[in-house]
């Protein structure tokens, strides 16, 4: 099946972006899609939720250097496609994972090359024929900052992860407005997470004026997986959250078949 799924998972801090992005990435991979997961959070998150081993240093560190005028550029022989082929790492179920530089004790300076290489890679992705039939799925850090500063240029669809709380709803509205101001045609899929009562999902949908793609219940399995430091799919494969992500995958496939 030819898919055209270019997604960015966004929302308030702690809304469940990484858990949902990771479970979705593996679910789609199990269905036969080729999946590239883009981790653009300088703090750890996605790789733990995927159940992937993370190298101590971001592999992309080797991909960029400073050229003339001190400006960052790819090293000789590397472009966006090569960067992914060479520096993405394996995650369970065949997902490929490309990570931004992760904050170190000395701050972001030591991983600046990886941060820059990541930015150049995602900005070059749009033109890359090599990945046209891949699912590209970005997990963004909390809030609207990366959306505002163009850290998901590949995204044709935002997966908004929203809890039924004021803070989470206001955050989602800010992100939606910023994303649409930059690109009016971008699609939105609303995932209401940590739903406890019947009114929760309709309330969020109403506030954001978006239909609910899926409602994900509050689930003890997620907490238990987090405490165990394991991926949800490995720790609690029958969790209601896993089933909800299956429905999200159906919705996304249904929205993107050509």
């Amino acid at each position, binding site marked *: 099946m030819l898919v055209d799924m270019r997604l960015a998972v966004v929302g308030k*801090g702690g809304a469940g972006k990484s858990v949902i992005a990771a479970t979705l990435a593996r679910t789609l991979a199990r269905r036969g899609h080729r999946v590239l997961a883009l981790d653009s959070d300088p703090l750890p998150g996605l790789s733990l939720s995927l159940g992937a081993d993370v190298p101590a240093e971001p592999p992309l560190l080797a991909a960029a250097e400073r050229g003339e005028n001190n400006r960052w550029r790819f090293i000789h022989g590397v472009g966006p496609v090569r960067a992914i082929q060479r520096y993405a790492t394996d995650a369970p179920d065949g997902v490929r994972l490309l990570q931004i530089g992760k904050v170190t004790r000395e701050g972001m300076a030591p991983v600046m090359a990886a941060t820059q290489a990541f930015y150049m890679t995602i900005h070059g992705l749009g033109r890359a024929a090599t990945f046209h039939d891949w699912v590209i799925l970005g997990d963004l850090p909390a809030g609207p*900052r990366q959306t505002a500063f163009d850290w998901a240029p590949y995204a044709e669809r935002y997966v908004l992860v929203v809890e039924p709380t004021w803070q989470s709803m*206001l955050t989602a509205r800010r992100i939606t407005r910023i994303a649409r101001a930059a690109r009016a045609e971008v699609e939105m899929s609303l995932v209401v997470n940590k739903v406890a009562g019947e009114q929760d999902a309709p309330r969020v949908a109403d506030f954001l004026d978006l239909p609910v793609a899926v409602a994900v219940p509050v689930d003890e399995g997620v907490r238990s997986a987090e405490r165990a430091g394991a991926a949800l799919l490995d720790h609690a494969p029958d969790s209601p959250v896993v089933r909800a992500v299956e429905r999200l995958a159906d919705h996304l496939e249904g929205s993107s078949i050509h």
Partner: protein
Amino acid sequence: MKLAIAGKGGSGKTSISGTMARLLARGGQNVLAIDGDSNPNLALTLGIPAERMSAMPVLPPDLLRRTTEGAELTQSLDQIKASHSVSGPDGVQLLVMALPQHANTGCLCHMHATVRSIIDAVSEDGNDVCILDTEASPEHLSRGTAIYADAMLAIVEPYFKSLETGRRMAALANDLGLERVALVANKIRDERELEAVQAFAERHELELGGTVPFDAGFPGAEHAGLAPLDFAPDAPAIKAIDEIAHRWAGNGNGRA
């Protein structure tokens, strides 16, 4: 006392910052709360209604001027407070850094620098308190926004992603030269969870600066659109935050 509050997304930074600010103000201290998150929500946990949020003033970019030595504020702290702060319940004054759409460059660097200078300008008087709520990112530490804080509390929940984020932030704060850095355990449901945080803190030689229990009053407050302190003033988590606030920023014992 100038206190920065950091931690993973959703760990409870804003709930704790807002509640602390209110409780310290009730105790008679002058409290300046700074929302340093580019996704500002601190007004809500201070008890400023959501309807007022869209009209909230943010710090303008012209408060900071570059000089040969670095940068300086173009107005006194009192002027800044008078023209750009919002008054919340109990007399807390709130300054909001900015939303990303207010940045005219590719980052919020200038606004981070403005907040840094404002924190610097807050007096060392024990009756004056400044609480900085931060974003779930290393920006405040890697950009040095929090460098003039006396202490940083990294709010952690009892699971690995959250603890690991707290640890990395604590290391950055130590390297920035903050005098005191500690973890605060939040949303603790039982003894076993507390022990997990204690063991982690010990293993990484970090101070545990306090413990806040899981409290249904907090999500309840969010549903009701109220500050946790107004929704459930006698909740166990409020008591715990009160104790932490006074231990870390109370008048006279801030450096105990």
